[in-house]
């Protein structure tokens, strides 16, 4: 945009004047006056084709009617949108569109919100003059989510343009000519793209409808509640819609949110709502009596928990009790959970990090906070002049962020990506670099060194030493990135002033996380246009409320607002070890599917077996339930009021969409009831009161309010970094010692990653997502496969020190040599049960 602003033009529409920027289509200018010109093919986010011909308007001094979507507003234009000529044209065009339409409104799911119904009522003729046999097409199957009914299609091509221009896979196409033209998928394959569901919203007629909601309700029976999607850390604004008079959620629609998801959501969020209707729920508290879990009442279960905990804490102190909460519940639940441990049990054994083992107290994410990283990926990519993605597979991790990065790329912003395997984003990137999995730190160190040399800026002494400790000569070659490639990347980085860095899960979690974050932050500092300002670095934690769990102080060594704790408790790994050696007598698992998420399944299983008193609270029967002494049923996300902090630090509120399942309590209610039962003077209050407590306890949530969170206007303030007084030593030596060479019999490195259509978390309780999920496979390099004689699709067994699984092999150049990549988490394929976390070595056998 130029400094003077866009040139404005003034035109007259139906006798009223309006001033709009030059180039605005007349249809948008009319909308500013409140004049709604009927249209099918036009959508403001898609390219203009002017094919439906319904938006024709009369312009003075132009002999023929003009489509208002493709005619730009011009100075002095006089437009009529409701003249006799225009109305006549509309009526005729509606008649043409309805010539082949089956008029099966009673069985069509679009009925009630269909533009054909609306416009033919408003502008159409009363009856058809077409009394011949209508054209019919066979019905195709285009996947488990979307139903394509070609007979109803009016060929506006919105879906085709969306898939091509926004989703980035031109999977839908118009084939054939004339009256035989119809929509089909490319080569009749099922739709694969994770944004395909948005075409349902875009389709103005009933040609594309949802297979998951199909015939389960009519649109006028739906009641809508604003909510936040709970399936990744983007936190898309959605509307949860349930059928009037029932507690069944039947549709999820995106809710406009300019700063986050705009008007799109991914298929996981859109079609995964059946998890809330699942009958496979914990319905009553259960207590273990004589080795069996037996149903009981809440009062009984809570009384038993209080009694047992009092005995354990009384005899051995608070340190004998620990709590692990997953990163998914609301801020209020997370806050109360750590408050229960710190205030009532006087124990600091609280952690929310269930998916990785932090190498030191401050993990990668906390390090980034200490380094003042901005941690606002959405805000950052909107204003950055270049986007650099490190170690992230966005299409599989955060789909909506992937969409926004794609949009920036198509707007001409260069996107660079370095990851250990190719991703679907590669095609829009200006440059892609691959390194070997497990060699993130040497890669980053090398890159930082070269870039600093190129930019002729001096690194601190400490940093120089650390970098050189990571670069013992041959290590660089081992990282799989050639000298030339790193130089090339360094050259690009040197020129990209004003770039922003997004660092993915594979880089900032785990033992090397803090070091990687430190190196990335240093790199970000070099590239930042704002010298001395916060480094333009954002980490991408993956879960619904990962940010919230950190802010609420679910850490053993930091309380709410990252307040350091004098006597730190144990983290997840230490708690599990404590369970095994007997120093931890009671463990509470809250919304944490530990067996499937923890990197060392064997350790987790032994700990859960060994711990004398285990309480598991969850909505669904995860695999931890059989180990529980007391199981508590919780409400699902759709039944609970609460706030969630997304990856951008935006505090957003989700409303309860349906009534709670009888017998289940929300997380907040359950913890408050436990506190009440304990005799700590707690009593049941609304989540809004808990949020007020949070706003008082967490300094960077000070200005947030419950009402503003409901409107999505709250963003967490920058954290006061004086809380982080511990020296940021890079702990290079400890990291180096943690590096272990391959075991003699186990030559392959097991690489794990995320996969969008897998089985993880609540996804397996949504039948629609289960039907769409892709089978787990083991990806190998062709060279390795040849060596051991594995072919594509052959079942191979992956054997680690602790266990083995059998998976079909997939031979692909995407896998690095010497590595076996297994994406996704599957309940029946426990990949985390093969090896210990720091020794990811396996062997592959036929």
């Amino acid at each position, binding site marked *: 945009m130029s400094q003077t602003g866009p040139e404005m033009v003034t035109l007259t529409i139906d006798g009223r004047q309006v001033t709009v920027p030059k180039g605005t289509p007349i249809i948008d200018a009319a909308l500013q006056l409140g004049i709604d010109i009927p249209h099918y093919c036009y959508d403001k986010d898609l390219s203009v084709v002017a094919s439906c011909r319904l938006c024709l308007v009369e312009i003075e001094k132009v002999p023929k009617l003009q489509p208002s979507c493709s005619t730009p507003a011009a100075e002095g234009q006089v437009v009529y949108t409701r003249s006799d000529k225009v109305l006549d044209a509309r009526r005729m065009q509606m008649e043409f569109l309805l010539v082949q339409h089956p008029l*099966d*409104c*009673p*069985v069509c799911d679009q*009925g009630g919100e269909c533009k054909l119904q609306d416009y033919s009522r408003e502008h159409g003729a009363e009856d058809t003059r077409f009394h011949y*046999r209508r054209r019919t097409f066979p019905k195709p199957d285009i996947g488990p989510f979307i139903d394509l009914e070609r007979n109803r299609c009016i060929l506006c091509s919105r879906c085709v343009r969306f898939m091509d221009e926004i989703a980035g896979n031109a999977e839908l196409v118009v084939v054939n000519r004339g009256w035989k033209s119809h929509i089909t998928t490319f080569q009749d394959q099922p739709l694969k793209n994770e944004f395909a569901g948005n075409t349902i919203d875009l389709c103005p007629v009933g040609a594309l409808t949802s297979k998951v909601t*199909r*015939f*389960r309700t*009519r649109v*006028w*029976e739906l009641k809508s509640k604003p909510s936040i999607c709970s399936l990744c850390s983007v936190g898309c604004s959605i509307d949860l819609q349930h059928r009037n*008079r029932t507690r069944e959620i039947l549709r999820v629609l995106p809710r406009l949110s300019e700063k986050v998801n705009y008007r799109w959501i991914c298929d996981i969020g859109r079609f995964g709502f059946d998890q809330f209707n699942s009958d496979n729920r914990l319905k009553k508290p259960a207590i273990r009596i004589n080795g069996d879990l037996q149903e009981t009442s809440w009062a009984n279960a809570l009384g038993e928990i209080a009694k047992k905990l009092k005995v354990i804490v009384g005899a051995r102190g608070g340190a004998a009790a620990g709590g692990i909460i997953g990163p998914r519940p609301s801020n209020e639940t997370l806050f109360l959970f750590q408050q229960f441990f710190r205030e009532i049990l006087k124990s600091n054994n609280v952690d929310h990090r269930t998916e990785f083992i932090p190498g030191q107290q401050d993990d990668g994410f906390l390090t980034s906070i200490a380094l003042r990283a901005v941690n606002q990926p959405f805000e950052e990519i909107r204003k950055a002049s270049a986007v650099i993605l490190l170690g992230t597979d966005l299409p599989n991790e955060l789909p909506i962020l992937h969409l926004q990065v794609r949009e920036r790329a198509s707007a001409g912003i260069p996107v660079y990506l370095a990851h250990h395997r190719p991703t679907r984003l590669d095609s829009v990137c200006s440059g892609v670099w691959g390194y070997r999995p497990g060699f993130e730190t040497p890669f980053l160190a090398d890159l930082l060194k070269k870039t600093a040399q190129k930019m002729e800026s001096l690194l601190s002494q400490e940093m120089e030493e650390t970098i050189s400790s990571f670069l013992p000569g041959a290590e660089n070659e081992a990282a799989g990135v050639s000298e030339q490639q790193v130089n090339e990347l360094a050259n690009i980085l040197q020129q990209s002033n004003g770039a922003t860095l997004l660092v993915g899960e594979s880089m900032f979690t785990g033992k090397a996380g803090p070091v990687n974050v430190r190196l990335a932050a240093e790199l970000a500092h070099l590239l930042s246009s704002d010298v001395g300002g916060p480094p333009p670095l954002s980490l991408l934690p993956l879960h619904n409320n990962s940010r919230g769990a950190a802010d609420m102080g679910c850490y053993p060594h930091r309380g709410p607002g990252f307040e350091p704790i004098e006597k730190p408790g144990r983290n997840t790994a230490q708690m599990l070890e404590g369970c095994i050696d007997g120093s931890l007598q009671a463990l509470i698992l809250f919304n944490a599917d530990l067996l499937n998420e923890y990197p060392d399944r064997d350790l987790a299983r032994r700990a859960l077996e060994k711990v004398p008193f285990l309480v598991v609270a969850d909505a669904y029967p995860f695999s931890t339930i059989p180990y529980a002494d007391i199981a508590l049923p919780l409400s699902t996300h759709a039944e609970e009021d609460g706030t969630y902090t997304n990856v951008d630090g935006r505090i957003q509120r989700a409303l309860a969409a349906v009534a709670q399942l009888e017998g289940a309590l929300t997380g907040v209610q359950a913890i408050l009831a436990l506190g009440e039962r304990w005799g700590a003077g707690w009593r049941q209050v609304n989540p809004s009161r808990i949020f007020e407590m949070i706003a008082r306890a967490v300094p960077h949530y000070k200005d947030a309010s419950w009402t503003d969170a409901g409107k999505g206007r709250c963003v967490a303030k920058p954290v006061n970094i004086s809380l982080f007084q511990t020296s940021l030593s890079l702990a290079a030596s400890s990291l180096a010692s943690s590096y272990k060479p391959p075991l003699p019999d186990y030559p392959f490195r097991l690489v794990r990653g995320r996969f969008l259509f897998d089985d993880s978390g609540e996804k397996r309780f949504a039948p629609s997502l289960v039907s769409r999920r892709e089978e787990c496979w083991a990806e190998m390099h062709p060279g390795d496969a040849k060596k051991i004689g594995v072919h594509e699709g052959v079942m191979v067994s992956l054997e680690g020190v602790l266990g083995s699984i059998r998976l079909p092999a997939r031979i692909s150049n995407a896998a690095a040599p010497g590595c076996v990549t297994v994406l996704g988490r599957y309940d029946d394929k426990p990949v985390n049960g093969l090896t210990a976390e720091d020794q990811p070595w396996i062997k592959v056998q036929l």
Partner: protein
Amino acid sequence: MHEAVFKPLPKQAGRQGVKVHLTARQIKTMGWTKSLQISWAIVKGMFMTWRHLFRRPTTFNYPNRKRAQAPRFRGIHRLQRHDDGLERCVGCGLCAVVCPSDAIYLEARENTPERRVSHGERYASLYQIDMLRCIFCGFCEEACPEDAIILGADWEAASVDRRDFVYAKSRLLAPLEQKDRFRRGMTWPDESPETTPASTDLPEYYQKLQNKPA
């Protein structure tokens, strides 16, 4: 402008006729004209009584005899069938949304090649009408795009259990042998031949029903 004028309401007419409940003292003091008036009133009344004794009675022997209905009488609902026996209802829910007393609840499901119930892609898997809520206004009949629901001629819905008044599909659906019966004064709408499946590919469901009429 015209000014409103308020007129006092006319006084209610007093009770007319003859006072017959008299005390002994009143009868003694009564004049002969008055006593004649009273006697005449009794005769008049008895004449009316005797006249009705020989008329046809207004009531009738109900369970054995039933009153004739008006041609467009709105009685208990019926879900109609097509000529081929398939259900007309496609479960669109328009009857439920138009119902002013919210008496209709239905759930829809998709027809499968193995189990075809109606002509379209969808049929009503659950269809319930609460007869205690229903006001028999006939809006459902008017809203129905498939002419599937009609208010029929039946009206005897008495029961001693409130639960009996929620009519399920089993009680509403027309029996197979009555598939072509329709209300007097109405004709079937024209059906284009291609919307009706050929009788040769009648689904198994219907064939089963044909063998075992409900």
